Every structure is written in structure tokens, then in C-alpha cells.
């Protein structure tokens, strides 16, 4: 079937597709493109101009010039093998040339897509490291990564996922460093996805996850090209998704959620110290309110004499049980955090001042909550942001409520059981074949160079082979 009619059939509803027919005697051709989606000047100089010039030879010569010798247009172009390919190319923003009587079309890569400039990383800030972050355009993202690794071992594989959205997904890895098992698992899973559209990298994260009941994320998402590049060097796989400034890295262990890119840009000594603090406050943000409630309601004898007096005296006029008090404060803290994301930045400051005064000072003054509880909740809230990756922060925020509940019911015993259950779950978890707690469990001594702390680069950086 002739391509022009096949296309016209399918594009009746597309008001944004421009078609222009050129006739030169028997040689009739049609140019299709998305309005405002291509570089018109390129089209004019490289396609229309050669076509409109009178051709000295026969039409058959002209056809074979175009389709076989590919010497007709002074630009790069692709000849489509199937009508679907021609349609996809057109809808992807390429200019399509159809020649009357031909089944093959010609695609010109003259796309002009609106895109955001590369800007500073907002969620994963760094003081000394690079400031660039990914944007929505997948090609820009790819080039950001390529700038950091010019190795020919970098493998890039393309997938188109989504029957209607037709989202471009790229899988990146370093040949030879990445286990073939990992590559084939991810590739297989990507190919097996049957969906209408891909909403973003989060969709793929869920689609690739084989154990969705776990609250722990098992793929790292990042907006930092340097993090993706270094993960590739470490033998991991990166997945870029068109239209998302957050790209995925797999496998991800608990450790990789505790590593911040800043760790690698500061001196190892301080990086190690900060990383230690991060583990400490990770534990604090998970456990502190639960431990407070458990100790004050079940085991007050654990508190030193003077501390008990302070806590008891400030709790004395509070009308609620400690657990209710804790839930009130934690939930209102979550509320402020959640609202803070939506509040326009202009009035954000005002709201946060009101929140701080109302929730903090006034609640204590009115005797609705006690000052120690306020301190605990504030400390917990702040320390949950020490975890550098937001997806893990969400997990900690959620698990804190669960632990709070069990420790209010069963005291420290309940808290310990809760922690043990979490540890059991973590030990059983893996991310694409890598145990979630590695290199701690199972212990791998050689990976300790970049685990609890960071050894100096010179001691462990791979040298070129």
C-alpha cells in the first residue's frame, strides 16, 4: 500500500501535522512534519531546495538517488522499512518525506523540542562537587553522562516502552564491569513491560520491582549525572527515561542510600565522619520517638534521676498519654512538611514561622504537649533529612510510625521486636541479586573501603588496565 494514503488514513485527527505536496510532473512527493516541531530552515535548505530544483535525469534515477545511493539530499536521513516506523518517526518530531507510489518514506532528524536548560541540582545539592542536574530531555541527559565517561566500553541500549506514549528508555552499563546476569535480568524485565504509557522513572521502578510489599526502595533515583557516571564505573546499570529528570540506578543497597555525592568531593577524613553521623541520625530518626514513649511509659527507672524530674515536671500538665502526644506532634510535623512542598515559595516563610510558633511554642505554653516531646519530634524530623536520598527518607518516615505504635503497646520489648523484624526483612531483601545490606551482611572486607566510611581515593581507586 502506498505510504501517503496509509498515513492520511491514520492522521485524520491530527490537526498539528502539516503536510505539503510538491509536484514536478510525474514526480509527486509529500512532506509531513509536526507544526512547530522541526527546524524549518533545515527542511528548506536541505530538503525542499534540492527537490524543487529541476532534475536533469529521469525520475527513476532520481528515485534511486534518493532511496539507494542516498546522495540526493545534502543531509543525513533514514529510509523507513515499514509504514509504522515512518509514523513513529513523524510523531517523534522528525520530518517525513513520502514519494507517490512508494512504500518507503524518508525521515529527516530535524526535531526541535522545547527543553529546559541544564540547571543546578535542587534535591541533591553539593558544595564542592558539580552542580549540574539532569533535565527532562533524554539526549541532554545522555550527553551529561557521556561527558564524564568517554570510554568506548559504555554500552547504550534503546527501548521504546508504552504502546501509546512510546517513551524512549535507555539502559546504560559498562561492558565488562557489569555482570551479564544483571544486564539480561533488567533487559528482560524492560522488554516484558506491557503498558500504555510510562509516566516517568517511578513507573519503571515499580515495574522492575519484584517485591512491591517492601517499604524499602531498591533502585536509586538521582538527578546527578556524576552519581550515574560513578555508578556505571562501579558496574551498575543506569536507566534513563525520556521526560524525567530523575534517572534510575540498579542495584541499590541500603548503603547506596546513605552515600551522598558530597562524600566523594570532600576529604576522606571528613566524609567518613559525616557518613558515620548519617548512620547515627538514620537510627535516631527511626527510633528516637518510639524509645522516648517506651521509656517514659514503661521503664521510667531507666532515666537518670535529674532527667526524669525534668521530663516528669514538663509532662505533668499534659492531658494526653505520651503516645497520643507523640502522634499529635509527629502527624502535625508531617503535615507541615507535606504542606511545605505545595505552599508557594513567596508565602512559604510566613507559613513556616506561623507553624513554628503555633506548633512549637504555643502548644507547650498551653500545656497541650510537653517541651521534651517537642524537642524529640524536632530532632527526629531534622535527622530524617540527613539521609541523602528522598525515597529512603520516605521509608524512614513511614516506619517510624509503625515502631511508635508497637513501642507504645509493648514498651522497649516491642521496639526491639520491631527493629528485629525490620532487620530480618532487610536481610531477606535483595536488589537485582545484590543483598540489600551488603557489604555489611554478607560481610565483604574489600568493599569496606567505601562503606561505613571512605578510605582515601589513592588507596582503592582502580588503575587503568
Amino acid at each position, binding site marked *: 500500500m502506498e505510504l501517503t494514503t496509509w498515513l492520511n488514513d491514520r492522521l485524520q485527527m491530527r490537526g498539528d501535522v502539516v503536510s505539503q505536496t510538491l509536484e514536478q510532473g510525474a514526480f509527486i512527493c509529500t512532506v509531513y512534519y509536526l507544526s512547530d516541531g522541526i527546524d524549518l530552515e533545515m527542511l528548506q535548505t536541505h530538503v525542499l531546495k534540492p527537490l524543487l530544483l529541476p532534475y536533469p535525469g529521469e525520475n527513476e534515477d532520481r528515485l534511486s538517488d534518493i532511496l539507494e545511493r542516498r546522495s540526493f539530499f545534502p543531509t543525513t536521513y533514514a529510509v523507513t522499512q515499514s509504514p509504522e516506523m515512518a509514523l513513529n518517526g513523524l510523531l517523534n518530531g522528525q520530518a517525513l518525506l513520502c514519494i507517490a507510489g512508494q512504500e518507503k518514506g524518508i525521515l529527516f532528524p530535524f526535531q526541535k523540542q522545547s527543553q529546559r536548560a541544564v540547571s543546578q541540582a535542587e534535591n541533591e545539592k553539593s558544595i564542592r562537587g558539580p552542580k549540574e542536574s539532569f533535565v527532562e530531555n533524554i539526549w541532554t541527559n545522555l550527553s551529561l553522562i557521556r561527558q564524564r565517561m568517554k570510554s568506548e566500553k559504555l554500552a547504550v541500549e534503546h527501548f521504546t516502552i508504552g504502546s501509546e506514549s512510546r517513551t524512549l528508555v535507555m539502559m546504560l552499563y559498562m561492558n565488562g564491569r557489569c555482570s551479564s546476569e544483571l544486564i539480561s535480568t533488567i533487559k528482560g524485565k524492560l522488554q516484558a513491560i506491557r503498558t500504555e504509557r510510562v509516566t516517568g522513572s517511578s513507573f519503571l521502578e515499580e515495574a522492575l520491582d519484584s517485591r512491591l510489599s517492601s517499604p524499602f526502595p531498591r533502585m536509586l533515583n538521582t538527578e546527578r549525572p556524576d552519581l550515574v557516571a560513578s555508578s556505571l564505573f562501579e558496574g551498575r546499570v543506569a536507566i534513563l527515561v525520556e521526560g524525567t529528570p530523575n534517572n534510575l540506578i540498579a542495584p541499590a543497597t541500603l548503603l547506596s542510600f546513605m552515600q551522598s555525592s558530597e562524600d566523594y568531593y570532600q576529604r576522606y577524613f571528613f566524609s567518613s565522619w559525616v557518613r558515620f553521623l548519617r548512620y547515627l541520625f538514620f537510627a535516631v530518626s527511626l527510633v528516637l520517638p518510639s524509645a522516648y514513649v517506651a521509656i517514659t511509659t514503661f521503664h521510667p527507672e531507666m532515666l537518670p534521676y535529674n532527667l526524669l524530674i525534668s521530663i516528669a*515536671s514538663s509532662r505533668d500538665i499534659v492531658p494526653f498519654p505520651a503516645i497520643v502526644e507523640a502522634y499529635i506532634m509527629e502527624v502535625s510535623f508531617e503535615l507541615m512538611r507535606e504542606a511545605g512542598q505545595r505552599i508557594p515559595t513567596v508565602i512559604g516563610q510566613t507559613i513556616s514561622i506561623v507553624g513554628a510558633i503555633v506548633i512549637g511554642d504555643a502548644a507547650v505554653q498551653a500545656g497541650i504537649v510537653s517541651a521534651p516531646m517537642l524537642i524529640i519530634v524536632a530532632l527526629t524530623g531534622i535527622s530524617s533529612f540527613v539521609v541523602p536520598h528522598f525515597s529512603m527518607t520516605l521509608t524512614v518516615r513511614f516506619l517510624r510510625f509503625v515502631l511508635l505504635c508497637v513501642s507504645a503497646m509493648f514498651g522497649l520489648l516491642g521496639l526491639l521486636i520491631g527493629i528485629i523484624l525490620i532487620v530480618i526483612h532487610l536481610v531477606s531483601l535483595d536488589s537485582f541479586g545484590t543483598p540489600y545490606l551488603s557489604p555489611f551482611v554478607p560481610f565483604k572486607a574489600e568493599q569496606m573501603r567505601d562503606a561505613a566510611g571512605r578510605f582515601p581515593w589513592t588507596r582503592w581507586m582502580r588503575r587503568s588496565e
Partner: protein
Amino acid sequence: MHIVKRAARMLLALGLACMLLSGCWSKQELNDRSFISTLIIDLNEEGATEVSALFLLPNRISTGLQSNTAGQKPYVLVTGTGRNIPEAFHDFQRDLPRNVTWGQLSVIIIGDRYARAGLAPLFDFLVRSTEFRLRVNVFYYKGVARNLSKLAPIFERFPTEIWRETAHTRRTPPVRIRDMLYSYWNNLGDGYLPELNLKMNNLLTENKKVPWSGIGGAAILKNGKVIDRFTEEETEGVLLLTTDVNELLVTGQMPDDGGLVSARLIDVKHKVKAVRRGDEVDIRVAVTADADLMSIQSNLDLGRPSNLRIIEQALQEQLLKKAQAAIDRARKRRVDAFQWSEYVKYKYPSLWQQWSKHPRSNLTEKMKPEIDVRIRLRNTGVSRSTKS
């Protein structure tokens, strides 16, 4: 959907499991608890036990910048009477609006009459209760002990803290209930109890005489009963023999002209060793300490090491005198106050076997204490004497 179903099933199972545990709800809010900080035990003239508990009152404690409770004491003493300690305790507990928590108990004071009648019922009560720690300090008061609670806690918020600090700072040899229970069940039940006293102190800044609690000597325990008392001097000797003290002031006299010399002892350590000689056992106590000279009335040239030895000698003699006095009194009353019987028991069990028929007479006659005090004067301040 599968996950949602599984999660729902899990939650249901957890909820059901929790329902089975509904009887385990042992939580108690801080607002519903009252905290005992000191337990005072007396015996009245009719022979009934009087138990007084010093409670902390969180509702009267001002926190932070608010000070709305001026003039009100943040503690209260409640007394009950009964035939034994639990009965006396129950006598006042049933009137309290809050549950009693023992976990913060840190001081027990025993009145003279109760102590002389024998501490066995108290030991029995202490060893059965699991609610408080074994680190509770025990004191003795020569008189009706609950009168001690009249004191004005000028330096601290609670009287308990004043008493507890005397043991913490080791101004008096600290005794914890663990020590007492140990000596009562393992050894002869002998020991000593540091003494608290109460006097009216005229404090000019307070514009009145206030009741003031300080440290005195120590009561001597023999088989769980108080029979005698170490004087304050002797108690310092006890301190040297039993406790490693961080800081201790000692004042002695120079051998030549009798001028006073004072030094601050730092890191006083003691070591006890038992050495058998035939049928007898030598108990060798080595006390070592560093000292800083604080004042001296003498013409000695402190630049010369030989003169320093003279000062050290004078201080050592002073300490030796105190320690010897303590030992002498204990031997006179045939009391194993320093638990030295234990050294014989564990090092020479066969000898202990022979002694065990008449342990007290054997401990007095066949055990020879030898005390060796070594002081090293490490700092003299200005290395020149006062008069030159």
C-alpha cells in the same frame, strides 16, 4: 491487587495477635506515677516499723523560665506505720492518688533504733524486690531518721541529692545496698554505715538558722546490727582502707617543730593482699596517693628532695594513725568491718575451714593487718619555704 490483599491479611493477623495480648498492657503514664527518691526507716518506741518515703512532686517543680512555685517544696515526706516494712509502706500507699515507682530510689536512711534492733527484715525486703537498683546508697542516722527531712536543701533542689552527693564525692565511705546484701549473705554480716547528721547552721545570707545535713562518722555493723560507731577521724581511716578517693585533704605535723602541713591527696588507691604464715594470715593494705602541697609552716628548703621525703613522712604518719584507729576499733568489737575474711576464704579455703567454727575470734587473733601508706609529693607550688 495481590499486594493489597496480602497486606490486608497481614494487618488482620497482626491485629488479632495483638488482641490476645490485651492483658499485657502495662503502660503507665508519667502523670500517673509518683517517684520515691529516699526511703527512711525508723522504729518507734512501741516497736512498730515506721517507713517514710520522700516523694518527688513533678507538679511543684518549675521548669525552664517559669517559676510559679516559689515557697513550695518540690518534695513531700509521707510516713506510715506497721509491723514490718511492707505493712508500714502499705499504710501510706493506699492514700496516694498515684502509683509508686521505686526505680528512682537512690538513698535509704536507717534510724538508730531500727539499726540497733537488726537490719535483717530490711535485707529481706530489699533482696526480694526487683523494682529498684542495687546502687542505692545506705546511710545511718543517730536518732529518729525522718527528722533529717527537715533540712533546707540550699544547694540542691531535693534533700536526696544532698545525701547522694556525699556518697558520690566520697567524702564518706559509700555503702550501697549491694554491699550490705553481699556481706550479709556471703560473709559475717559485718560492715559499716556512713552516718548523716543534722544540725542547725546559722547562715547569714538566709537571715535565719537553717537545718543542715552533713556527714558524721560511721556506724559499725555486726551481724546486721549496729553496735558501735567509728568517730569522724576513724571514718577517714575507713575511707582510706576501703575506697579509692579522687581527692582528700590531709593535715599533719612536721616532726621537727610541729608546724602544720596540709596537702591535697590525688588518686588515693588501695590494694589488699592476704599472705599466710603458718596458722596466721597477714592482711597487707597498701595505700598509695599523689599529693599537692597546699600549705606548710616550716623553714624547710623545698627544693631539696630529702626535705620532701620528710613532708611525705609526716603526711603518711597522719593517715596511718587514722587507718590504724579504725582497725583497732573494729578488732576491739570483733567486727569484720572491711570484709577481710573474704581474702582468707577465697585464698586459703582450708584455713578458713579450720577457722569457721569460731570465725570472729580467729579473725581477731590470727589475722594481722599491716598498713603501708605511700605518698608521693608531686607538686609543692612555690619551691621556697614561707619564712625565708
